[in-house]
């Protein structure tokens, strides 16, 4: 599994946000994109996942395993994404959230339930199936959100500053957990952050995005 962005240029009206950004993420590796806020890091992820905001124009290609998915709708790309907020669906239980994410190729109520239980056990949250997500702690919610993405069997993972909202102690643990889980599944992972600690932990290539004015 690989993820590649080729010659991505993003602009808002006449203003060019990103020019000609290319990167390749091999299987099981984490590429970190860094830069100050407003530089277009999150827009790059939005472009990769196919959810660029209206008013933005983009050129360039998104490749998954060498296949061009630039024209595919977001839900057909197989690109999972984790945001700064867990974004658990508040009207569903923990199990409901995970079952919503779990890939449809796994059939049968019992098998699907078993997969959910196994995922919760892996996330060190055994037996929380029937809980209301609003009653979980921040760290627990973050892990449920991660398991929800992994259960959907993505072919690449995007991380949009997913550790920013957690306090320091929790951040280290969750970061380690996410990176290990992504590596264990050989997922190409693209991490966007402004925390140098994240980049060090990711232990992969780092791409620095500079504001347009500073770019030549």
């Amino acid at each position, binding site marked *: 599994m690989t993820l590649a962005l080729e010659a991505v240029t993003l602009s808002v009206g006449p203003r060019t946000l990103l020019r000609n950004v290319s990167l390749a993420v091999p299987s099981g590796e984490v590429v970190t994109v860094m830069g100050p806020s407003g530089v277009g890091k999150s827009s790059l992820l939005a472009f990769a*996942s196919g959810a660029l905001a209206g008013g933005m124009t983009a050129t360039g290609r998104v490749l998954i395993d060498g296949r061009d998915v630039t024209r595919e709708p*977001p839900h057909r790309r197989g690109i999972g994404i984790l*945001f700064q907020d867990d974004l658990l669906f*508040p009207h*569903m*239980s923990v199990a409901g959230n995970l079952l919503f994410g779990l890939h449809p190729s796994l059939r049968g109520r019992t098998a699907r339930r078993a997969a959910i239980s196994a995922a919760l056990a892996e996330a060190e949250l055994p037996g929380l199936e029937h809980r*209301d997500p609003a*009653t979980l702690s921040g760290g627990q919610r973050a892990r449920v959100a991660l398991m*929800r*993405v992994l259960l959907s069997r993505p072919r690449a993972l995007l991380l949009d500053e997913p550790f920013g909202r957690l306090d320091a102690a929790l951040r280290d643990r969750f970061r380690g957990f996410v990176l290990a889980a992504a590596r264990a599944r050989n997922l190409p992972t693209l991490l966007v952050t402004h925390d140098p600690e994240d980049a060090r932990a990711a232990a992969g290539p780092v791409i620095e995005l500079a504001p347009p004015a500073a770019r030549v």
Partner: protein
Amino acid sequence: MIPLAPVLLLAAMLVPIGAGLAATVLPAFGWLPALGGHAPSLQPWRDLLASPGLGRAVALTIGTGLAATTASFAVALALAVAARRPAMARVVTALLAPLLATPHAAMAIGLGFLIAPSGWLARLLSPWLTGWSTPPDLATVQDPWGIALTVGLCLKEIPYLLLAILAALAQADAMAARRVAAALGYGPWRAWALVVLPRIWPQMRLPVMAVLAFSLSVVDVALILGPSAPPTLAVMVLRLFADADLARWFPACAGALLLAGIVAAGLGLLLLIERVAARIGTAASRTGRRGGTGSAADAASMCAAILLALLGAGALAVLALWSFAGAWRFPDVLPARWSAAAWQAPMLRGPLLATIGIGLAATILALLLAALCLEREQRTGTRPGRSLALLYLPLLVPQIAFLSGFQQMLVRANLDGGALALVWSHLVFVLPYVFLSLADPWRALDPRLARAAAGLGASPARVLLRITLPLMLRPLLAAGAVGFAVSAGLYLPTLFAGAGRVATLATEAVTLSSGGDRRIGAASALLQAMLPLLAYAAAILLPAWTARHRRGMALQ
């Protein structure tokens, strides 16, 4: 379906208005082949001008319309300013819901039962204070000056404008400006006039315009509380339309057009006043004068709130009394005998079912159109710009100016009196309210939820069904309740589209208010008021129940 939603939504409103207006304008100038008008002429206008009492009807229309709008806006503003005190805020919020939910006609009938010469107020004061043992010969309702009509309109428009003010305040964070002004030593009332009102006025302009247009062209309240010889212009036009002599259709169309012209002039006047007021405000804000503590104004506002509460609660209470009254002679304060016969009157069953059926159908259609439009907005990331102002068109164009024409269209299409005609004509008025109340919560929904779901492989349809709609359940039901309440209150659309063959509680209440049985009239008005209340209750209780195990849903 979704890409077409905005077109469908606008067409659902604009086709009846556009075609209806055209079918009013042409006969107003003599063109209506079906009734023998084959050549353009000014005869309809000459006939209209020759109608007895036209001048007085026009004066009455303008007088009551302007008075009701001015008074409603002034009182609503005063209540909003005074509501900075917690005690006042409690009174205001307690007032708002029941007054808003009660349809115009029901409120007008209740007010009539309250202030009529034989009404509850006279009974409460007689004979010990007034010495009356029979109802006095006073014109306290349907008075020639239209005072009762104006009061009846204010009773409904004050809460409407107050709600609009509170919504605008919440959006503009204008209260922060008031705190800044207060820190600079400005009194609360002056601070409001100089820094808060200018900030919220852009959001208030259309609601105030809607109130002005409604007050100038209202029919049901004018039939119940307004004078009858001559009546207001809108009622006069309605009588012309309903005349057995079909030739009267021509001057009726001319009259409807005249009313539309008066409303347009009124709206123009409002924009002019806005300019002048802005100048005066700017000049006043440069004098540096701070204004007083405003305790007298606060006290006056409190009195206004109490009067409003007494009239509103009194109107509803007297409806309840009459609906359960057996024998009730003047000047007894309470009925001598009680009876539930009015509630069992078979003549109410048909109108009740019609009101529910039409209301539900129009509301569901409106919700569907509005939700699809907002979903399209969310997906494309684009917002309609100025075309949104078109949403207010059904509230600004006088109903009678296009409903008669729309009915002509329906007759030609052989649809008049049918379910489609009724639902469509209700939809025109339900849509704006449903869309406006649904838009803010829908746009406030975190778009990353949909992105997260798409990242999990959920198709747009699945995201809509499993994520967006469940999360929007509360706003959907709230908007639905508003839409249903609007539909339950509509009088003219049923009258015209129903072709006189379909009665709803609104038309029944108005019919019964003129010389029908008071008990059945009261029961019918109360039923009309209860339906929206039930809808609001359902809109609050149902999502609370479905989300009873989901604490996070309280934040949605």
